[in-house]
């Protein structure tokens, strides 16, 4: 495995600049040519006060997941940080303020609570900040300086990101912050000269300094823009709101428009209206809003109107755990709404897929004339990771609408029954094709028609279309597949990264295990999945839901019972948890 694999955690109270410090750290190490995966956790919904934590895993190879153990804890608030000590790796480094404010209760210093063997690094964050910039506000930057020196990270990367952030605020603020950084840097360098490790020196990076640091949310927003979306209709909901925030800025620059609608029903309604009229539009929501959309989603199925819906999953049921991650809307995404209403459901597993699938789903929606749902989750949306910039070809964003020919013009049959199930669809404004799109069962011309033969034929048409979509959908990705695997791990969404890392580790210990990533949730590649399963002595499906929802959907393809690993902690699963399960299964 990789040579560099360092997890840094910064912990403080809101107001301490924890999340901001994390942002600088992520950006700087990315610039230094390392891979990063980072994820913040906020003080849930209680306003004003609460613990903020940002976790950043740094490595020289692609990061697949967060790791369970923290190698470096930077404490901006010792009381809050105490609860984080249990997550420390052996001989971890703890960087803390050794001259805390006088009102801190006795015994609150972290120093009193760490295990023996911990590398305790005291730096007077506040004092140094006050000296450098005249206020303690820059203490988070001081801490970063101290950190950089300890791991021999070149200060210029931090200088660069700090400059980028503060230059608009004027020279004095910018310089103050730079001085804070240097103060921490120099303090560490002098005081802890003997403890310096070269972990993050330039030569240890992966040499890809042009990779970008991206979150799932922004990747989705950029994907939408690059796909040529011109309308966004949405209703705020955690964790989908940042997509809306991004597009609120980006759309007007492209001549587009964002409307904050009155609810999720109207959001999907407007998306359908927009696609009906020939313009790419989208909405993003989470479970509760998605439930409200299901009636209209099936209208899209029946009337054959495209739509794009991002469901950024969070903990459920109901309002649930709005700020926690979960993968428990899979079955609802596939089945929600009345009738035999098959639609397309995709799941993104990482930030690049957030981007590419967002683009892909517009073409799928257009060609197959159906709502397409992309499942992501709180973790995937809010984490940042380094990725190679992706450039999308014209082809990949091309209009996939299928318009009627001149010859269809007389006696136009909007819902003509074809082998593929696809029938040409005009835009209003095109002369000679006017028709009524309807959620009632209808004849080929579009009028209501409830005769048995017609409903059978139309049901079959609609389902043929969805089955055909598999041709354009991402096939399951196999990893380490060979005949007679002892175990196959199948996973989806943001859990897959952790699964793959666990599989890698198990293989390096000699276990014959392979992995399969499923991105096409519905329709799914039953044959390919079955043929993978057939090679495996056991199948393990880890997912972040209680019921085993993917297992419920595809489990019947395996001729034994699949083994499930279901976790609903609200936090991302760590590779080690899946690794342990693999070992447990292998030692049965």
């Amino acid at each position: 495995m990789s040579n560099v694999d360092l997890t840094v955690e910064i912990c403080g109270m809101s107001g301490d600049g924890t999340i901001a410090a994390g942002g600088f750290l992520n950006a700087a190490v990315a610039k230094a040519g390392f891979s990063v995966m980072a994820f913040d956790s906020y003080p849930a919904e209680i306003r004003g006060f609460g613990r903020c934590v940002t976790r950043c895993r740094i490595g020289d190879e692609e990061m697949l997941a967060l790791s369970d153990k923290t190698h470096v804890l930077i404490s901006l608030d010792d009381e809050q940080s105490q609860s984080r000590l249990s997550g420390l790796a052996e001989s971890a480094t703890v960087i803390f303020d050794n001259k805390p404010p006088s009102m801190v209760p006795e015994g609150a210093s972290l120093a009193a609570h760490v295990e023996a063997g911990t590398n305790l690094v005291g730096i007077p964050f506040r004092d140094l900040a006050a000296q450098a910039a005249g206020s303690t506000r820059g203490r988070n930057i001081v801490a970063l300086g101290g950190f950089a020196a300890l791991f021999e990270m070149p200060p210029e990367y931090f200088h660069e990101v700090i400059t980028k952030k503060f230059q608009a605020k004027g020279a004095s603020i910018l310089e103050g912050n730079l001085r804070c950084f240097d103060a921490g840097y120099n303090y560490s360098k002098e005081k802890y000269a003997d403890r310096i490790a070269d972990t993050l020196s330039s030569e240890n990076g992966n040499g890809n300094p042009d990779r970008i640091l991206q979150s799932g949310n922004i990747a989705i927003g950029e994907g939408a823009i690059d796909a040529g979306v011109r309308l966004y209709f949405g209703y705020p909901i955690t964790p989908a709101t940042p997509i809306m925030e991004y597009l609120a800025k980006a759309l007007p620059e492209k001549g587009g428009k964002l409307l904050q609608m009155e609810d999720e029903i109207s959001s999907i309604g407007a998306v359908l209206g927009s696609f009906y009229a020939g313009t790419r539009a989208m909405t993003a929501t989470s479970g509760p809003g998605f439930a409200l959309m299901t009636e209209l989603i099936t209208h899209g199925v029946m009337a054959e109107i495209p739509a794009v819906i991002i469901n950024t999953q969070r903990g459920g049921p109901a309002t649930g755990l709005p700020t926690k991650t979960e993968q428990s809307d899979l079955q609802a995404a596939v089945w929600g709404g009345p009738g035999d209403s098959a639609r397309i459901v995709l799941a993104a597993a990482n930030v690049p897929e957030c981007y590419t699938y967002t683009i892909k789903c517009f073409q799928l929606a257009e060609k197959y004339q159906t709502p397409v749902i992309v499942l992501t989750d709180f973790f995937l949306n809010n984490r940042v990771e380094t990725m190679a910039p992706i450039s999308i070809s014209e082809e990949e964003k091309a209009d996939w609408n299928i318009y009627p020919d001149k010859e269809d013009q007389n006696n136009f049959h909007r819902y003509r029954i074809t082998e593929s199930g696809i029938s040409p669809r005009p835009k209003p404004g095109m002369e000679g094709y006017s028709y009524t799109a309807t959620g009632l069962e209808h004849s080929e011309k579009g009028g209501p028609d409830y005769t048995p033969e017609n409903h059978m034929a139309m049901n079959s048409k609609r389902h043929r279309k969805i089955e055909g979509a598999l041709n354009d959908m991402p096939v399951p990705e196999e990893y380490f597949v060979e005949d007679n695997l002892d175990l196959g791990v199948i996973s989806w969404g943001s859990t897959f990264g952790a699964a793959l890392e666990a599989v890698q580790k198990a293989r390096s210990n000699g276990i014959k295990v392979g992995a399969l990533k499923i991105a096409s949730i519905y329709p799914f590649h039953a044959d390919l999945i079955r043929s993978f399963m057939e090679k495996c002595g056991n199948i393990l499906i880890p997912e972040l839901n209680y019921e085993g929802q993917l297992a419920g959907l595809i489990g019947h393809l395996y001729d034994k019972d699949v083994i499930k690993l279901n976790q609903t902690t609200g936090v991302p699963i760590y590779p080690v948890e899946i690794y342990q399960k693999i070992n447990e299964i292998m030692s049965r």
Partner: protein
Amino acid sequence: MKTSGKVLAAQVAKIKDSDVFSIRSENLPTWCPGCGYFGIHQGINNAIQRMNIPHHKVVTVSGIGCAGRYSFFANTYGLHTVHGRTLPVSTGVKLANPELTVFAVGGDGDGLAIGGAHLPHIARRDINVNYILFDNSIYGLTKGQPSPSSPPGFTTKVSPAGSTEQPLNATLLALSYGATFVARLFAGDPEGITAALIEGIKHPGFAFFHVYTSCVTFDKQFKTWDHLKKWVHPLPENYDSSNHAQSIAHVLEDDYSMGILYRKQDS
């Protein structure tokens, strides 16, 4: 305003023969004979024709209900959406292609009950959609239940002892929501509908048309043709449609004056 039953019957015949069915003549109206919706249909057709709007540049978005069926009978592009959602769907259509003339059409149940959350917001946003509320004060398609605009005492199978709720006044609501164009019309007067529609279509923002009509099949009690014809009357001679507060005051006093009640001047 003196439309008798016979005249209406003639209108039904007229609509059936009208050239607007040339393309999609398979979709002749399936409303009950005598239903007020024929008159509204004719009013809309006339407006489109007199304004020379090409039919393929018109989209009719309709909800569910007898009124909702209208999008099958209109000789335009149609979108027969689910119950109550005409307004958000129309919003999408209009923003997607502002060159289209967009009608949203639905019943009183569609618009004031299940869809009641949407009217305030399309009005606030002043989206250039023409919303025609077919108000028969009853749920027609589901065979006669009271609607939000039914008067109390309405006896139906689900209110055998008479309904008890107070009615909502859609005109007053549209005004309270800040709609920038509000007209009240009568299905028995297609010409009146046409005249108001022509103004409303020209209006650059949201236009609301509250059309009183009769469900001849399920309402024998309140909104019958006989009653409606007795009740409706034109706006007062000196009526000033540019004053919002006065329009509201007027509507609070007079439930049956017909015409353009309010038109925001600078919008």
